[in-house]
Protein backbone atom coordinates (compact mmCIF):
# COMPACT_ATOMS: atom_id res chain seq x y z
CA UNK A 1 0.00 0.00 0.00
CA UNK A 2 3.06 2.27 0.24
CA UNK A 3 3.99 1.57 -3.36
CA UNK A 4 4.86 4.88 -5.17
CA UNK A 5 2.84 3.76 -8.23
CA UNK A 6 -0.30 3.85 -6.16
CA UNK A 7 0.11 7.25 -4.53
CA UNK A 8 -2.29 8.95 -6.92
CA UNK A 9 -5.20 6.77 -5.97
CA UNK A 10 -7.57 7.62 -3.14
CA UNK A 11 -6.34 5.59 -0.10
CA UNK A 12 -9.87 4.52 0.82
CA UNK A 13 -10.42 3.03 -2.63
CA UNK A 14 -7.02 1.35 -2.40
CA UNK A 15 -7.96 -0.25 0.90
CA UNK A 16 -11.23 -1.51 -0.54
CA UNK A 17 -9.42 -3.05 -3.50
CA UNK A 18 -6.89 -4.73 -1.26
CA UNK A 19 -9.60 -6.12 1.02
CA UNK A 20 -11.63 -7.34 -1.94
CA UNK A 21 -8.65 -9.03 -3.57
CA UNK A 22 -7.61 -10.65 -0.29
CA UNK A 23 -11.13 -11.95 0.38
CA UNK A 24 -11.40 -13.34 -3.13
CA UNK A 25 -8.04 -15.10 -2.88
CA UNK A 26 -8.73 -16.55 0.57
CA UNK A 27 -12.18 -17.81 -0.38
CA UNK A 28 -10.80 -19.40 -3.54
CA UNK A 29 -8.06 -21.03 -1.49
CA UNK A 30 -10.45 -22.20 1.24
CA UNK A 31 -12.83 -23.80 -1.24
CA UNK A 32 -9.95 -25.15 -3.33
CA UNK A 33 -11.60 -23.55 -6.36
CA UNK A 34 -10.25 -24.39 -9.80
CA UNK A 35 -9.29 -21.73 -12.35
CA UNK A 36 -12.54 -21.93 -14.35
CA UNK A 37 -14.59 -21.24 -11.22
CA UNK A 38 -12.41 -18.24 -10.40
CA UNK A 39 -12.63 -16.96 -13.98
CA UNK A 40 -16.41 -17.25 -13.99
CA UNK A 41 -16.61 -15.43 -10.68
CA UNK A 42 -14.40 -12.61 -11.93
CA UNK A 43 -16.35 -12.37 -15.19
CA UNK A 44 -19.51 -11.85 -13.15
CA UNK A 45 -17.68 -8.98 -11.47
CA UNK A 46 -17.17 -7.44 -14.89
CA UNK A 47 -13.36 -7.70 -15.03
CA UNK A 48 -11.89 -7.80 -18.52
CA UNK A 49 -10.25 -10.90 -19.98
CA UNK A 50 -6.68 -9.65 -19.65
CA UNK A 51 -7.05 -8.88 -15.95
CA UNK A 52 -8.74 -12.21 -15.26
CA UNK A 53 -5.86 -14.02 -16.96
CA UNK A 54 -3.25 -12.08 -14.97
CA UNK A 55 -5.07 -12.79 -11.72
CA UNK A 56 -5.38 -16.48 -12.50
CA UNK A 57 -1.70 -16.84 -13.44
CA UNK A 58 -0.60 -15.21 -10.19
CA UNK A 59 -3.07 -17.31 -8.21
CA UNK A 60 -1.82 -20.50 -9.80
CA UNK A 61 1.77 -19.61 -8.93
CA UNK A 62 0.98 -19.16 -5.25
CA UNK A 63 -1.82 -21.70 -4.84
CA UNK A 64 0.22 -24.37 -3.05
CA UNK A 65 1.80 -21.97 -0.57
CA UNK A 66 -1.66 -20.56 0.11
CA UNK A 67 -3.10 -24.00 0.84
CA UNK A 68 -0.27 -24.84 3.21
CA UNK A 69 -0.81 -21.58 5.07
CA UNK A 70 -4.58 -22.07 5.36
CA UNK A 71 -4.13 -25.67 6.45
CA UNK A 72 -1.83 -24.66 9.28
CA UNK A 73 -4.39 -22.29 10.82
CA UNK A 74 -6.46 -23.91 13.52
CA UNK A 75 -6.31 -25.55 16.90
CA UNK A 76 -4.84 -28.92 17.60
CA UNK A 77 -3.41 -30.72 20.62
CA UNK A 78 0.26 -30.22 21.45
CA UNK A 79 2.28 -31.51 18.54
CA UNK A 80 5.27 -33.78 19.12
CA UNK A 81 8.21 -32.72 16.99
CA UNK A 82 11.11 -34.74 18.36
CA UNK A 83 12.24 -37.05 21.12
CA UNK A 84 15.46 -37.26 23.13
CA UNK A 85 16.45 -39.95 25.60
CA UNK A 86 19.01 -40.65 28.25
CA UNK A 87 20.02 -44.03 29.62
CA UNK A 88 21.32 -44.07 33.17
CA UNK A 89 22.38 -46.70 35.65
CA UNK A 90 21.24 -46.00 39.15
CA UNK A 91 23.69 -46.92 41.91
CA UNK A 92 22.29 -45.47 45.09
CA UNK A 93 20.10 -42.79 46.64
CA UNK A 94 20.49 -41.21 50.05
CA UNK A 95 17.65 -43.42 51.28
CA UNK A 96 18.65 -46.62 49.56
CA UNK A 97 22.03 -48.00 48.62
CA UNK A 98 22.97 -50.61 46.02
CA UNK A 99 19.94 -50.09 43.79
CA UNK A 100 21.75 -51.11 40.55
CA UNK A 101 19.16 -50.71 37.88
CA UNK A 102 19.06 -49.04 34.48
CA UNK A 103 16.47 -46.37 33.80
CA UNK A 104 15.57 -44.20 30.86
CA UNK A 105 14.73 -40.53 30.83
CA UNK A 106 12.65 -39.62 27.77
CA UNK A 107 11.84 -36.07 26.68
CA UNK A 108 9.24 -35.32 24.02
CA UNK A 109 9.72 -31.96 22.33
CA UNK A 110 6.30 -30.45 21.79
CA UNK A 111 4.97 -27.44 19.95
CA UNK A 112 1.80 -25.49 20.48
CA UNK A 113 -0.16 -24.54 17.36
CA UNK A 114 -0.75 -21.05 18.81
CA UNK A 115 2.42 -19.90 20.52
CA UNK A 116 4.92 -22.26 18.93
CA UNK A 117 6.79 -23.37 22.02
CA UNK A 118 5.80 -25.24 25.14
CA UNK A 119 7.70 -26.87 27.98
CA UNK A 120 8.69 -30.36 26.94
CA UNK A 121 7.08 -33.48 28.33
CA UNK A 122 9.64 -35.50 30.29
CA UNK A 123 9.25 -38.76 32.08
CA UNK A 124 11.32 -41.63 33.39
CA UNK A 125 10.71 -45.29 32.66
CA UNK A 126 12.22 -48.72 33.09
CA UNK A 127 13.33 -50.84 30.17
CA UNK A 128 10.10 -52.84 30.27
CA UNK A 129 8.01 -49.68 30.24
CA UNK A 130 9.95 -48.30 27.30
CA UNK A 131 9.39 -51.57 25.45
CA UNK A 132 5.67 -51.22 26.15
CA UNK A 133 5.72 -47.65 24.84
CA UNK A 134 7.61 -48.55 21.66
CA UNK A 135 5.35 -51.57 21.11
CA UNK A 136 2.25 -49.38 21.22
CA UNK A 137 3.77 -46.79 18.86
CA UNK A 138 4.64 -49.58 16.43
CA UNK A 139 1.01 -50.77 16.55
CA UNK A 140 -0.08 -47.27 15.62
CA UNK A 141 2.39 -47.16 12.74
CA UNK A 142 1.21 -50.54 11.45
CA UNK A 143 -2.37 -49.34 11.60
CA UNK A 144 -1.40 -46.27 9.59
CA UNK A 145 0.25 -48.44 6.98
CA UNK A 146 -2.82 -50.63 6.67
CA UNK A 147 -5.07 -47.58 6.41
CA UNK A 148 -3.03 -46.17 3.53
CA UNK A 149 -3.34 -49.42 1.62
CA UNK A 150 -7.11 -49.52 1.76
Amino acid at each position, binding site marked *: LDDPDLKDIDPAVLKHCHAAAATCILEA*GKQKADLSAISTCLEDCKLDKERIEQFCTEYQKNKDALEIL*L*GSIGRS*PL*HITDVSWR*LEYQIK*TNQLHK*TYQPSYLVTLNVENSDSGSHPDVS*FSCTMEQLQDLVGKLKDAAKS*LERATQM
Partner: protein
Amino acid sequence: CAFFTGKLNTGVDTIQHGVEGLMYLLTESSKLMISEIDFQDSIHVLGFSDELNKLLLQLYLDNRKEIRSILSELAPKLPSYHSLEWRLDVQLASRSLRQQIKPAVTIKLHLNQNEDQTAQVLQTDPSTLLHLIQQLEQALGEMKTNHCRRIARNMK
Protein backbone atom coordinates in the same frame (compact mmCIF):
# COMPACT_ATOMS: atom_id res chain seq x y z
CA CYS B 1 1.99 -48.09 73.22
CA ALA B 2 -0.33 -47.80 76.24
CA PHE B 3 -1.67 -51.29 75.49
CA PHE B 4 1.77 -52.84 75.58
CA THR B 5 2.72 -50.86 78.70
CA GLY B 6 0.16 -52.81 80.64
CA LYS B 7 1.15 -56.15 79.10
CA LEU B 8 4.91 -55.84 79.51
CA ASN B 9 5.02 -53.90 82.77
CA THR B 10 7.27 -51.14 81.50
CA GLY B 11 6.94 -47.40 80.84
CA VAL B 12 5.46 -45.90 77.65
CA ASP B 13 8.77 -44.24 76.87
CA THR B 14 10.62 -47.54 77.00
CA ILE B 15 8.18 -49.12 74.55
CA GLN B 16 8.47 -46.14 72.23
CA HIS B 17 12.26 -46.22 72.34
CA GLY B 18 12.17 -49.95 71.73
CA VAL B 19 9.98 -49.60 68.66
CA GLU B 20 12.05 -46.71 67.30
CA GLY B 21 15.26 -48.63 67.90
CA LEU B 22 13.90 -51.64 66.06
CA MET B 23 12.74 -49.45 63.18
CA TYR B 24 16.14 -47.80 62.90
CA LEU B 25 17.93 -51.14 62.98
CA LEU B 26 15.79 -52.61 60.23
CA THR B 27 15.74 -49.50 58.05
CA GLU B 28 19.47 -48.94 58.14
CA SER B 29 20.23 -52.61 57.55
CA SER B 30 17.84 -52.76 54.59
CA LYS B 31 19.11 -49.49 53.15
CA LEU B 32 22.71 -50.71 53.15
CA MET B 33 21.67 -54.21 52.12
CA ILE B 34 24.13 -55.72 54.60
CA SER B 35 24.84 -59.43 54.58
CA GLU B 36 23.66 -61.87 57.25
CA ILE B 37 27.11 -62.08 58.81
CA ASP B 38 27.49 -58.30 59.01
CA PHE B 39 24.04 -58.02 60.57
CA GLN B 40 24.83 -60.65 63.19
CA ASP B 41 28.14 -58.96 64.03
CA SER B 42 26.41 -55.61 64.37
CA ILE B 43 23.74 -56.73 66.82
CA HIS B 44 26.13 -58.93 68.78
CA VAL B 45 27.51 -55.81 70.54
CA LEU B 46 24.04 -55.10 71.94
CA GLY B 47 24.46 -58.08 74.24
CA PHE B 48 21.12 -59.80 73.61
CA SER B 49 20.55 -63.52 73.99
CA ASP B 50 21.33 -65.86 71.10
CA GLU B 51 17.64 -66.59 70.62
CA LEU B 52 16.81 -62.91 70.34
CA ASN B 53 19.66 -62.38 67.87
CA LYS B 54 18.29 -65.19 65.72
CA LEU B 55 14.80 -63.66 65.82
CA LEU B 56 16.15 -60.25 64.82
CA LEU B 57 18.09 -61.74 61.92
CA GLN B 58 14.99 -63.54 60.69
CA LEU B 59 12.96 -60.36 61.01
CA TYR B 60 15.53 -58.52 58.93
CA LEU B 61 15.67 -61.16 56.18
CA ASP B 62 11.90 -61.53 55.98
CA ASN B 63 11.16 -57.83 55.65
CA ARG B 64 14.20 -56.56 53.81
CA LYS B 65 12.66 -56.61 50.34
CA GLU B 66 9.52 -54.74 51.35
CA ILE B 67 11.43 -52.13 53.32
CA ARG B 68 13.70 -51.53 50.34
CA SER B 69 10.80 -51.08 47.99
CA ILE B 70 9.24 -48.52 50.34
CA LEU B 71 12.57 -46.68 50.65
CA SER B 72 12.91 -46.56 46.88
CA GLU B 73 9.73 -44.47 46.77
CA LEU B 74 11.50 -41.72 48.68
CA ALA B 75 14.04 -40.97 45.97
CA PRO B 76 13.70 -37.77 43.91
CA LYS B 77 11.68 -38.63 40.87
CA LEU B 78 10.42 -37.30 37.61
CA PRO B 79 6.98 -38.21 36.39
CA SER B 80 7.12 -41.83 35.36
CA TYR B 81 5.50 -43.63 32.49
CA HIS B 82 2.29 -45.45 33.20
CA SER B 83 0.69 -46.24 29.85
CA LEU B 84 -0.16 -44.89 26.43
CA GLU B 85 -3.30 -44.91 24.28
CA TRP B 86 -3.35 -43.94 20.63
CA ARG B 87 -5.84 -43.10 17.91
CA LEU B 88 -5.59 -42.55 14.17
CA ASP B 89 -7.29 -39.41 12.86
CA VAL B 90 -7.66 -37.88 9.42
CA GLN B 91 -8.52 -34.21 9.26
CA LEU B 92 -10.94 -33.64 6.39
CA ALA B 93 -11.68 -29.93 6.68
CA SER B 94 -11.25 -26.92 8.90
CA ARG B 95 -12.66 -23.45 9.11
CA SER B 96 -9.85 -22.10 6.96
CA LEU B 97 -9.46 -24.92 4.44
CA ARG B 98 -11.87 -27.43 2.92
CA GLN B 99 -11.18 -30.74 1.25
CA GLN B 100 -8.12 -31.80 3.22
CA ILE B 101 -6.65 -35.22 3.87
CA LYS B 102 -4.34 -34.75 6.83
CA PRO B 103 -3.49 -37.92 8.78
CA ALA B 104 -2.48 -37.60 12.41
CA VAL B 105 -1.90 -39.86 15.37
CA THR B 106 -3.45 -38.68 18.63
CA ILE B 107 -1.81 -40.02 21.76
CA LYS B 108 -2.92 -40.00 25.39
CA LEU B 109 0.12 -40.36 27.63
CA HIS B 110 -0.59 -41.48 31.21
CA LEU B 111 2.09 -40.51 33.70
CA ASN B 112 2.46 -40.99 37.47
CA GLN B 113 3.72 -38.10 39.51
CA ASN B 114 3.87 -38.50 43.28
CA GLU B 115 0.78 -40.69 43.46
CA ASP B 116 -1.20 -38.49 41.06
CA GLN B 117 -1.94 -39.80 37.62
CA THR B 118 -1.88 -37.26 34.84
CA ALA B 119 -3.00 -37.77 31.28
CA GLN B 120 -1.72 -35.60 28.49
CA VAL B 121 -3.15 -35.50 24.99
CA LEU B 122 -0.54 -35.10 22.26
CA GLN B 123 -0.55 -35.37 18.52
CA THR B 124 1.97 -36.23 15.88
CA ASP B 125 2.15 -36.81 12.15
CA PRO B 126 3.07 -40.12 10.49
CA SER B 127 6.68 -39.24 9.63
CA THR B 128 7.42 -37.99 13.14
CA LEU B 129 5.87 -41.17 14.52
CA LEU B 130 8.28 -43.31 12.52
CA HIS B 131 11.15 -41.10 13.67
CA LEU B 132 10.07 -41.52 17.32
CA ILE B 133 9.94 -45.29 16.93
CA GLN B 134 13.39 -45.39 15.36
CA GLN B 135 14.94 -43.21 18.08
CA LEU B 136 13.39 -45.13 20.97
CA GLU B 137 14.36 -48.48 19.49
CA GLN B 138 17.92 -47.22 19.39
CA ALA B 139 17.56 -46.29 23.06
CA LEU B 140 16.40 -49.80 23.93
CA GLY B 141 19.29 -51.30 22.00
CA GLU B 142 21.82 -49.36 24.03
CA MET B 143 21.38 -51.43 27.16
CA LYS B 144 22.37 -54.52 25.21
CA THR B 145 25.68 -53.10 23.97
CA ASN B 146 28.97 -54.38 25.39
CA HIS B 147 29.70 -51.06 27.02
CA CYS B 148 26.52 -50.99 29.10
CA ARG B 149 26.66 -54.68 29.89
CA ARG B 150 30.23 -54.32 31.18
CA ILE B 151 29.29 -51.43 33.44
CA ALA B 152 26.25 -53.26 34.82
CA ARG B 153 28.40 -56.32 35.52
CA ASN B 154 31.18 -54.41 37.23
CA MET B 155 28.93 -52.25 39.33
CA LYS B 156 27.45 -55.15 41.25
